Each structure stands twice: as C-alpha cells, then as structure tokens.
C-alpha cells in the first residue's frame, strides 16, 4: 500500500507538542534529572555534529568541484561545452563526450523503460502473490545489487565478445539498461501500488476490463511517480563509469549510429583524472556531470513534490 512512504504528519505534530509541554514541565521541576539532561544535551550535540559532517562533506565536494570547474566552463563560455577536444592532451571542449553520454543513456532508457514499466505493471496488478512473484522480485533485487563492474564485465563478455556487437553505444546501453531495469521497475511498482484501491474498484465497478483499468486509470495516476523513477535511473546511468568503460570503447568519437564507439563524460573524467595531464578539462567535465545530475535530481524532486502537493498525500 505504500503507507510508510508518507510519514504521518499529524501524529508527528502531536508528538512535537507533547515534547514541548514536557520540556516546559521539566524546566519547572528540574531536580534529580540533571544527569539525564546532561546526557541528553551531549547526545543531541553528537547528532548535530554527525549531520554537520555529512552535509559538510557534500558541501565540500560540490563547492570544490564547482569552484574549479565553473571557471573552466565559463572561460569563453560555450566553448568548453560545444567544441571538440583537440590535440593529444584533449584541450578544448568535451562536446563528443556529452553527446556520447546522452546517446547511450537515452538508448538505454529506450530499452529499459518499456520492459521495466510493463514488468512492474505485471507485478503490481496482474501477478498473484506466490512463488513466481517472489522469484521475479528476488531477481529484480539481485539485479539491483549486482556490482556495476560485474555488469560491465558481463556486457563486454556477452554483448561484445559473444554476440559480436562492437564496442559501441549499443553495447554500452544494453549494459546500462540492465542497470536501470531494477530501478525503474521498483519505482513503477511503488508508484502503482500507491494508487488507492478504491480508484480501481470504481473502474471495475463500471465494467472496465483489467487492461482498461490499468491503462486509463492506474498508470495515468501513477505517471508522475514513474517519471520521477525514470529520471533518477537516468541520473544513475549518466554517472555510471565501470559499465561504460568496458563496453563503449574509449576513443573520442561523435556517435551517429548505435554501433559507433565513443567516450562518455564519466570515462573522459576518469581518463583525465588518472592521466593527470589536463586537469582543467577534468574539473570542467566533473562540474558538468554534477550539474546534469543535479538538474535531473531537482526535476525529479519537483515533479514528485508537486504531485504530492496536488494529491495532498
């Protein structure tokens, strides 16, 4: 039912109020509770500190990369984004790597989305709880937990070496789609399960068939959440390096057909970082990569927030 998705605000408010009252009461009768209060204060301080460290780390990474990357990107502004890397040290822009990244992740999404969404529809709407569902869900969980390097290794050995697909966008996106499949599947299933039952009953009650109910009532209602899941999966795939490194080839190339090889932004960043010859390019790439992922994350948040506000959940 997805009830634990929405923390119960009303209950919490009551808790807060109770707490406030308690605090006041304690202030009035502060006698033998000194030690407990001291512990309380220390412990809460530790909690503050830990959260500070976590948020601080994020801030440091973001600020450091942005500080160094922004100046690279802003130098003759669109040049870094829209020009080719030139010469042996990849000076200039990173245009082909941006295209290769979007190409492979877009293709991967084209492959993974229909399968994952339909699979989730099956799990949430059609399947009877039992062995088959358990197996499928376990498989999806396992697929989600397979380390990306194993996925890359599999992609290289199976798609490239066994099926004969060249090191290319296609090979990389097949690998990436395996990575995205469980993420989209889970998001879609949760989205569908979060659709209140009575809506379905209403539909069935009016004589709609299962498919009519699913396609016209359930999926449209769940769409914003599904899209949120899609965007997060896309963000994950854009940052993925290990799979792409082993299956796309690493030469800089502007891909046109899916069997073209290329170098993604993440791989470009890795190579620039370890080659260490052209650190400015590495900073610029890292910044753009972060920016894309930031935008995707924020838009996912925006959609889900807007949706939940509208739904009043």
């Amino acid at each position, binding site marked *: 039912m997805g009830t634990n998705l929405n923390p119960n605000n009303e209950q919490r408010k009551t808790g807060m109020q109770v707490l406030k009252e308690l605090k006041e009461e304690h202030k009035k009768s502060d006698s033998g509770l000194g030690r407990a209060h001291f512990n309380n204060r220390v412990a809460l301080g530790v909690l503050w500190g830990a959260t500070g460290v976590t948020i601080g780390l994020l801030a440091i990474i973001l600020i450091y990369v942005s500080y160094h990357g922004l100046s690279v990107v802003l130098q003759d502004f669109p040049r870094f984004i829209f020009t080719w890397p030139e010469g*042996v040290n990849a000076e200039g822009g990173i245009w082909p790597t941006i295209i290769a990244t979007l190409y492979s992740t877009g293709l991967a999404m084209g492959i993974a989305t229909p399968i994952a969404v339909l699979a989730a529809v099956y799990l949430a709407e059609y399947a009877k709880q039992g062995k088959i569902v358990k197996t499928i869900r376990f498989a999806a969980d396992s697929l989600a937990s397979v380390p990306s390097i194993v996925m890359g290794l599999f992609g290289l050995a199976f798609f490239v070496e066994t099926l004969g697909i060249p090191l290319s966008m296609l090979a990389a996106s097949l690998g990436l789609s395996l990575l995205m499949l469980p993420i989209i599947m889970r998001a879609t299933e949760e989205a569908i399960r979060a659709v209140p039952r009575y809506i379905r009953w209403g539909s069935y009650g009016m004589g709609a068939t299962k498919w009519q109910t699913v396609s016209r009532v359930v999926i449209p209602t769940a769409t914003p959440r599904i899209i949120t899941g899609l965007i997060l999966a896309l963000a994950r795939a854009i940052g993925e390096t290990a799979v792409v490194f082993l299956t796309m080839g690493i030469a800089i190339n502007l891909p046109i057909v899916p069997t073209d090889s290329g170098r993604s932004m993440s791989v470009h960043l890795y190579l620039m970082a370890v080659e260490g010859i052209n650190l400015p390019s590495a900073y610029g790439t890292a910044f753009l990569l972060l920016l894309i992922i930031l935008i995707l994350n924020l838009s996912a948040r925006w959609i889900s927030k807007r949706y939940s506000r509208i739904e009043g959940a």
Partner: protein
Amino acid sequence: MPNSDGTVKHLNKDGHPKRFAPCRQACKLAMPVLATLLLMAAFILSGLLTGCRGAAFESTIVVSGSTTLLPIAEVAAQEFQEAHPEYNVLVSGMGTSAGIEAVGLSGTADVGMASRDLRGDELEMDLLEIPVAYDGIAVIVHPSNPVSDLTVEQVRDIFAGNITNWSEVGGEDLPVVIVNRDEASGTRSAFASAVMEDELFEVNSVVLPGTGQVREVVARTPEAIGYISVGFVEPRHVNTIVKALSLNGVEATDENIIDGTYPVSRALHFLTSGVPTGTPLEYIEFVLSEQVQLGAVIDAGFLPVTEQDLAEFRHALGEDN
C-alpha cells in the same frame, strides 16, 4: 493557480470526491517530460533503423590497439579526415595485445598499434611492424632528492624491492616509495623488459593507471620513485616539477634516446597484416609525414621517427610490390 492549489489541499483532506481533477494537472505537467524523454529515445532508435553510415564514406579504416599511441592516432585521424573527407578513420584503444589480435587474428582492424615488441605466437602472424614514434622512459624522483644518477642495476633493485632505503644508493635515510604503472600499461612492459630482466616488481608499490598521476605523485612525495615517458618530464598543463635521473651516467635526452645510448627506450609501432595498401597505407603515410611527426608525435611527448625508419618502410613497400 496558487489559489487552486490551496483549495485542492483542502478538498483532499476532507476526502472530497473530486480528488481526480487536480491529478490531471500532475499528469499534464508530467506528460511533456515523459514525451521529451521518449522522444530522445525514439530519435536515437530511428538512427539505428535509417542511418546507414557507410554510404556517406568511400571507405572506413579501423585502427586499434595500444592506448599509448592512441592520442597520436586520434589526432592524425582527425587531420587525415580533414584532408580526405571521403575517408572515415575509427580509432579505439584497447591495449596492445587486443590490437595485435584484432589485426593478426580476427582481422577486425586494418591497423594495429603496439607499444611493445611482438612476442610468442604474435611473431607468427605475418605482421609488418612500422615504427611511428620513439619513446624514452625516464626514471623520476622528487626534485629535493639528492640522488641524480643510478645504474640500471640499482634501479632494478629498487623496483624489485631489494633496495628499500634511499641511503643505500647515496640518498637520505628515507624508505623508498615505489610508484608503478598498471600491468596493462605499455610503459610498464617496456620498462620491465629494459630494466627488470628476470626480476619481478615489488608488490608493495603504488600502482597507478596513468602517466600524469605517476608524475603528480612523485612530484609531491619526497621518497617516491617512478617512471614515465620522457616527454612528460617537463611540466605541461601543471606546474609541478619532477627530476629525471640519468641512468648509467647517460641523460635522457632526445639524441641519447634515438641513438640508443639511453638504456630505457622503445619504438612505438603500427602493425599491418602483410604490406599495407589502399586507404590504410595512405593513413600510415600521413602519420609518418612531417605534419604528424613534428606535430602530434612531439605534442604527445614522443620523439619522431628517423630517416632510416622511413627508408626501411619504403623498402618494405617496394620490395613486395
């Protein structure tokens, strides 16, 4: 609009039956996003169906192999295509071994790139080795390190872990930190065959996958020793400094590397199955031309080929014609 949001919330909390009208707004804003994403995928998939890239080019050649040579081959390919738009050169770096296999066995590549000599079975593949650049490998230390000359034996002992303190070779009393390259590296195998002989590398050494990182770590760590291509000793995009040691008293200068007196150098080769003809030949000749030799080759930190190499290449071509 802002009003309607508030109203909507209110309605929902009361469990008002008109819950679905606002949902349509959500769908409406979500649909364009979905549409854009799917369009992106469709655009790419349509490329698969309609795009027949071969039609646009007269001929395509595939170059693959060592990542050491990758930058040269790539830049040369770009310049070559600018001069001959009808040709398409695809360059990919998969490592020397894979490149040799692609040219010699599977035939999936027209030109291979090798940063080490052929060995074992590879010698029987009837491959023509064409030197396209020379590379010396400099042994580098921190600029503050008082040691400036080592014998090849001393270097071997250091990298094999037999010498573990700089005082044993006339330096300060500091433990040696070995910075090594990964096993896939052509630099490492060239260094191993020139210096290490039968000794194995000490296991307790930092293994880094890139030249620049080796340089950067050595420049930062006073007790470190590493090896990189001579062309990267001088700072390029960075302002850190490393010191190249002379080996057996010979400095790693261009002349010493080309005439072979500097003990750790190697030739970088293109490989073709038999004698090259047609477009691959044109590409190779382009790589051997002054434009690339004095441009990309030097930019990449390597040394150009000699007149003698060119003469031998022409000889190999002429002899078989």
